């Protein structure tokens, strides 16, 4: 397979990654969930927000246990849990990926300029990082959701804006490491501009840790979305997400007697996060064989 240029850094990393069984399984599981999310309308038997009634009566078919009609039963409003689970993958992944894109772009940009230019820029931005790190996310989100109409975009931006700090710190550290290497001095000595040095020499050489950070960030964003939605300040009903499907488990009755409502979203959440972490670990080992 010629995915990468022969003998390049990524070619070697790809070969090492392929040998890591856990990482390959993780990648396969992740891919499976992605496929499931993309083809949700084809897989799910019902619409996610479709209400079901008890046969012959004008009453919602709430808390129905798993049956042939509803593979994983129905929830507190009589909606099909299995269909919501599959559509929920879409929402959950979209939130996670968009949030990570935001945090990676901000974090990488700030990390690059603080690491490269240092001095006052560095001092100012790193204090901003400290402030953002110490900011209570939950409080922020609850305040926002009381002021504005809660929407999926608010969740995405909120997660993105609080999680760029670890990327920024990582990138800054890597830039500081790479910046003092002789090939950067060499580029300076032959008249490269700062922009060119940052984009052509520094960024390609720190891409590997950034990619690891992206995978781990995605897993963390999924967890964050789940906890926010569980508390009711994340993705709002009727849009299904794995987090807000767990909301029903806040009721003791559901938690005790109706495991079909909360175990499946809990398990897929756990599975996907675990799979992504395995991929992240595999990438880290593949990129840095020295350890």
């Amino acid at each position: 397979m010629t995915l990468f240029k022969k003998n390049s850094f990524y070619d070697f990393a790809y070969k090492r990654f392929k040998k890591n069984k856990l990482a390959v399984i993780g990648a396969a599981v992740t891919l499976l969930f992605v496929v499931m999310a993309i083809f949700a309308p084809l897989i799910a038997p019902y619409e996610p927000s479709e209400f079901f009634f008890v046969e012959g009566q004008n009453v919602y078919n709430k808390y129905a246990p798993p049956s042939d009609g509803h593979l994983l039963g129905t929830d507190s409003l009589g909606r099909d849990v299995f269909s919501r689970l599959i559509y929920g993958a879409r929402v959950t992944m979209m939130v996670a990926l968009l949030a990570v894109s935001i945090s990676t772009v901000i974090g990488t940009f700030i990390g690059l300029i603080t690491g490269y230019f240092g001095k006052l820029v560095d001092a100012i931005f790193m204090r901003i990082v400290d402030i953002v790190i110490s900011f209570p996310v939950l409080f922020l989100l609850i305040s926002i959701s009381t002021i504005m109409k809660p929407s999926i975009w608010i969740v995405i931006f909120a997660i993105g804006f609080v999680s760029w700090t670890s990327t920024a710190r990582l990138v800054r550290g890597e830039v500081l490491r790479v910046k003092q290497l002789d090939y950067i001095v060499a580029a300076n000595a032959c008249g490269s501009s700062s922009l060119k040095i940052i984009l052509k020499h520094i960024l390609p050489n720190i891409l590997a840790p950034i990619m690891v950070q992206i995978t781990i960030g995605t897993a963390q964003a999924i967890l964050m979305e789940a906890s926010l939605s569980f508390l009711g300040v994340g993705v709002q009903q009727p849009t299904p997400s794995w987090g807000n499907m767990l909301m029903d488990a806040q009721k003791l009755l559901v938690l005790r007697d109706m495991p079909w409502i909360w175990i499946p979203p809990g398990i897929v959440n756990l599975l996907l996060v675990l799979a992504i972490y395995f991929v992240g670990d595999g990438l880290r080992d593949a990129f840095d064989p020295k350890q």
Partner: protein
Amino acid sequence: MYKKDEKKILLEVVDLKQHFPIETGFIFKKQVGAVRAVDGISFTVNSGETLGIVGESGCGKSTTVRSIAQLYKPTSGSVVFDGLDLVNAPKNEMLKARKNIQMIFQDPYASLDPRMTVRTIIGEPLDIYMRRGLLDEPMDKEMIEKRVEDLMERVGLNRAFKNRYPHEFSGGQRQRIGIARALALNPKIILADEPVSALDVSIQSQILNLLSDLQKDLGLTYVFIAHDLAVIEYISTRVAVMYLGKIVELSKSSELYHNPLHPYTKALLSAAPIPDPVIERKRQRIILTGDVPSPNKEHKGCYFYERCPMRMEKCATNIPPMHAMGNDHAVACWLYE
């Protein structure tokens, strides 16, 4: 072939100082001192010659060449290259001058970008200057490609390897890549920062021979740093001995090795083993006591005072200037006043 132009001064360094500030404080920094890496050195380099700079670790050799190349902004002093004062040169003039001042680095593993192919690495200076429109004669992509291949052959690399990555080469081959990159823009002077220190002895001689061949064929001028006295003797026309950011002795290579004047030079030369066991057994070593003082300190007297076996009262309070001893030999020591 290059015609030898006698005694044309190509590079003149006058009282160059490079101090790095030591700062403390939170956000608003306060300077509390300075590392005096290079503390007022002056020398000239003639066209076509090799000036060797020798000295122990941390004496400011590397900083000197980096300051000359304006990779650091010198604290004071001037660097005049081909009639242009680089320290105060406008950006555009500096870019043009950079074409003629190229560098070779010590660590052949760190000096090549691991994500780039050899072709990109060697072609990078050409690429940069092509884009800026500052090449002597405009080149297109194919001409650069051709030039890269020629350069590879010139430094003894197979042109078929141009799409390989640095990690596929040995240390010596990598150093050849670094040399090819330095040659790409047809520079007049090459600042070589310990180009052979990281290599095996057998490879060292290959690289040294390559460098002297290139000098003969292309009329290059070198400023060559090393801590190995034998290497310096082999390659240099003239040698500067540095100690703690100062030049203590500057002379023709043969003169320096046969007639060292400064107590530090004497100690340095006495430390080098002689490859003849009979003479080696009789070798008298001058053992210096104490460590090199911290470069953060400001000196009132001779920089070598604390460790000098011949120190006099005068040395503690007066910084010795360079005394010309005739025969192109200068020494910074009160013994030769």
